[in-house]
């Protein structure tokens, strides 16, 4: 393959003529056998040596190049009788349907011809597809009578996949070919054939090209037995039948036998092209496995296009299970030593790094910071072995390239599938660690959508300085803290980081100076000056804030009171930061959580990504040590409510169920007033749903009133760390209405949901209202309804992911070539303007304030604080 350098200037698509097939063929194939007894390929057989060589060392009989360099050469089989090519059966049918059986002309009147000719020529001139016009012709030219020779036309039908039937008579492939030959060249235009590259009769095969052996290599098993490729098997079948057909024809066998063999030949050629063509049983291997023939090689997800051309397997990559490590930076990734020894970075040897490189080589391939290969200036790659390393070091000179192991600080690309957005692939710095998993900081879980229940991730190692530099400035994790999706942070504190920060900074949280220094030191923050007294949590957290940061916002724990008490908020939900000091308010999800962290957002935008990375690394660590000082655990005991509360909830639910009974009674007595635009039944459903919904909420409120901020489950729910109040009230108070298809449960038996109820029963219990709490436990009926609702939820998620995945694929395919040019216009790859200004406002959402240019109100608030603080 070496030495072939040509530039493709044009590609023409057309049909291959029999002459062409013979011309490119190096030999005629006649024998269905492959090798003789001695294991040598038979001349004129399917493994004919002229078809190319695979074994290195041998020379090709046709082109003279060595095995591996020879691409192989086509042969051909002369078919005893013509057969229809499956891929063109539909086209042949359409053509025969729209041409005269006698004169071969297209069944169009002269005026129609003129009209279509103009339309086709106009389209060709403008480079527009002519398919719609051809389709129209195929429809119009289905005439009962030829407008030229007045011959009555019979209906031509196709019997999938390859039989063409006229009236009641099945046309043979030879007859089909004759008819196609009969079409005058002037009429080719109307059936969509370009006479320069194709003739319709070429769609019926008289000669079959035989692909070179390189396309269908045989495999030698360990036992020494030869195993042939599926294509070779199929070609053997074709040759065998072809032979028999020829012999029978020459011997003057009865018509019936010849036709049977002809049909069989047609079947083999059909399955040779496509073994999944509808209407033909697939050809099978001896083991019963369907053969993989030409179409199967290309088609589908595992086919040549999607699996080998659009996507390829790569070197210098690694994949393993991921696990968390809160001690490494968000920019880092922990790489197992085993992997670090396997994947390498090429380093050019210079006078200045010579010593270091020699050290690596002397460590060899098995000791960690070592080297696996050395590439000499003449491009020869030499593997480093413990036995050869001394000799290699001797010869090392500037200009050599050493492929050394991964070491701390190398930049790698880290990725988790599905790669749905650009944050699914980010550049990390390597930190070589023991054990066998990739380690990552918990803050980068949200962008990758990773957890540690067995997730695996891929790592790729950059091989050039350019790619490394580019990745370091564009793809590093810290450059992706702000998401271009909504202009806020997508990387940030999660779970315990948030409950930890809350426990640390909430009202009344104080730590002895000793504890403070211990936490600060463990979080690897610079040691502060001693205060000589106990510290408040807010003072500790303030150590992390930039000294001129000013901001005000309402925390996640804000209860949204009717009148905001601002600084005097009794929940400590009004956060004020004055010159880098946390004055009031507790730190929670709104401060530095992924998706909503305001302080984090502000630090990235005002102080840059380096400061933000440091802030995230330290604050999450501080929060973790904060939570460790206090201790944090949760259990069902957190959802325990006193008997008094249970009684109140019971009473409330009974009231609600009574109300529902009244509504149903009113409905039956026709006293119910229909809502505008609703039927009586719909009105009842709505009112019942409303009553039951309210009762569930009220029962939740009762339960909530018994929960305090000393309850860990409540802390997690309110600070946004994990779970919601709804989760808690469903456990403690009442699960509520189960729904299928957005309404109360109606399905099951005729006129009732379960045999435990009367026909037509509409009550709360009969339609899936779960009155119990998860903690109390569901009764069997409730459990059944709950499973119905739960099943619908699961099915919906499964369908949604499949649907949105396909939708995304189509969207990405449509938009992938668009990009924003330096002048702010959006253009496609031909330079055609799509938008004269990106997004119509020219704003990069990642650099905007949650999608807006700026939040003026907030800026004014902050400036007010700033001026007051001075």
């Amino acid at each position, binding site marked *: 393959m070496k030495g072939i350098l040509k530039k493709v200037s044009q590609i023409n698509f057309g049909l291959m003529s029999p002459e062409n097939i013979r011309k490119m063929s190096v030999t005629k194939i006649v024998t269905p056998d492959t090798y003789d007894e001695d294991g040598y390929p038979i001349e004129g057989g399917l493994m004919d040596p002229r078809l190319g060589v695979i074994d290195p060392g041998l020379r090709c009989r046709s082109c003279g190049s060595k095995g591996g360099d020879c691409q192989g050469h086509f042969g051909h089989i002369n078919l005893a009788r013509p057969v229809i090519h499956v891929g063109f059966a539909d086209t042949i049918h359409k053509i025969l349907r729209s041409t005269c059986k006698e004169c071969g002309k297209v069944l169009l009147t002269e005026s129609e011809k003129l009209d279509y000719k103009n339309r086709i020529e106009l389209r060709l001139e403008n480079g527009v597809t002519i398919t719609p016009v051809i389709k129209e012709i195929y429809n119009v030219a289905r005439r009962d009578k030829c407008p030229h020779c007045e011959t009555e036309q019979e209906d031509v039908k196709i019997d999938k996949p390859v039989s063409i039937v006229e009236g009641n008579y099945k046309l043979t492939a030879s007859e089909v070919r004759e008819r196609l030959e009969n079409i005058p060249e002037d009429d080719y235009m109307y059936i969509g054939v370009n006479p320069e590259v194709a003739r319709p009769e070429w769609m019926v095969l008289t000669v079959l090209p035989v692909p070179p052996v390189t396309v269908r290599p045989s495999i030698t098993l360990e036992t020494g037995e030869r195993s042939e490729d599926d294509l070779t098997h199929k070609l053997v079948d074709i040759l065998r039948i072809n032979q028999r057909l020829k012999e029978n024809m020459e011997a003057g066998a009865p018509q019936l036998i010849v036709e049977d063999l002809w049909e069989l030949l047609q079947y083999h050629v059909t399955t040779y092209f496509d073994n999944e063509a509808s209407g033909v049983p697939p050809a099978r291997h001896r083991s019963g496995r369907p053969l993989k023939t030409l179409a199967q090689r290309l088609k589908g997800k595992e086919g040549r296009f999607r699996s080998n051309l659009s996507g390829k397997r790569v070197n210098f990559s690694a994949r393993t299970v991921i696990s968390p490590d809160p001690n490494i930076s968000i920019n880092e990734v922990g790489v197992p030593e085993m992997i670090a020894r396997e994947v390498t970075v090429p380093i050019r040897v210079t006078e200045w790094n010579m010593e270091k490189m020699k050290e690596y080589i002397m460590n060899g391939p098995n000791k960690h910071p070592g080297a696996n290969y050395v590439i000499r200036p003449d491009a020869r790659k030499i593997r480093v072995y413990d036995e050869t390393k001394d000799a290699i070091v001797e010869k090392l000179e500037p200009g050599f390239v050493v492929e050394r192991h991964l070491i701390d600080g190398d930049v790698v690309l880290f990725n988790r599938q599905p790669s749905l957005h650009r944050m699914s692939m980010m550049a990390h710095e390597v930190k070589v660690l023991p054990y066998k998993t990739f380690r990552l900081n918990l803050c980068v879980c949200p962008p990758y959508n990773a957890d540690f229940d067995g997730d695996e991730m891929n790592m790729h190692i950059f091989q050039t300085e350019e790619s490394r530099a580019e990745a370091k400035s564009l793809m590093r994790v810290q450059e992706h803290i702000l998401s271009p999706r909504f202009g806020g942070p997508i990387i940030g504190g999660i779970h315990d980081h948030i409950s930890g920060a809350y426990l640390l900074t909430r009202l009344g949280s104080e730590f002895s100076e000793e504890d403070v220094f211990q936490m600060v030191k463990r979080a690897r923050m610079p040691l502060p000056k001693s205060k000589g007294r106990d510290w408040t949590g807010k003072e500790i957290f303030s150590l992390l804030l930039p000294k001129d940061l000013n901001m005000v916002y309402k925390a996640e724990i804000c209860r949204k009171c009717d009148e905001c008490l601002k600084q005097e908020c009794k929940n400590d939900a009004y956060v004020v930061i004055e010159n880098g000091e946390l004055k009031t308010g507790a730190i929670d999800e709104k401060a530095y959580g992924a998706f909503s962290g305001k302080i984090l957002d502000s630090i990235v935008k005002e102080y840059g990504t380096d400061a933000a990375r440091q802030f995230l690394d330290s604050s999450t660590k501080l929060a973790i040590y904060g939570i460790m000082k206090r201790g944090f655990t949760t259990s069902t005991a957190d959802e325990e409510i006193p008997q008094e509360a249970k009684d109140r909830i019971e009473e409330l639910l009974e009231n609600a169920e009574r109300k529902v009974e009244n509504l149903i009674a009113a409905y039956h007595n026709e006293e119910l007033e229909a809502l505008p635009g609703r039927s009586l039944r719909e009105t009842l459903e709505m009112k019942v749903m409303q009553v039951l919904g309210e009762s569930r909420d009220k029962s939740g409120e009762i339960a909530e009133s018994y929960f305090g901020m000393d309850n860990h489950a409540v802390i997690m729910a309110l600070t946004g760390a994990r779970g919601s109040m709804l989760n808690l009230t469903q456990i403690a108070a009442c699960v509520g209405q189960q729904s299928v298809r957005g309404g109360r449960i109606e399905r099951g038996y005729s006129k009732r949901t379960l045999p435990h109820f009367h026909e037509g029963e509409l009550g709360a219990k009969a339609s899936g209202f779960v009155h119990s709490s998860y903690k109390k436990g569901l009764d069997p009926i409730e459990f059944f309804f709950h499973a119905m609702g739960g099943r619908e939820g699961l099915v919906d998620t499964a369908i949604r992911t499949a649907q949105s995945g396909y939708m995304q694929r189509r969207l990405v395919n449509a938009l992938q070539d668009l990009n924003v040019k330096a*002048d702010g*216009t959006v253009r496609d790859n031909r*330079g*055609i*303007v799509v938008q*004269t*200004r990106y*997004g*119509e*406002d020219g704003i990069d959402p990642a650099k905007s304030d949650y999608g807006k240019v700026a939040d003026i109100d907030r800026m004014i608030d902050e400036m007010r604080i700033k001026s007051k603080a001075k």
Partner: protein
Amino acid sequence: MKKDILKHKLVPDHTILSKTEAKKVLKELNIHQEQLPKIKVDDPVAKAIGAKTGDILKITRKSQTAGRFVTYRLVIN
């Protein structure tokens, strides 16, 4: 019952640019007129304002992000 589509609230304001205006716009965007987005000459709006093939239309519409946005289209057939 024929309605004036130009008065419909969903139809943005289209105006035909004069030759000099068109030249200015193309120069400003630094593009060829073929690189502009297109509009068919038989598009209802193009017909309503009487645009001819080769004209450039200035379209002023409401925008969610920018408030008001001006774009251009080349009339083709």
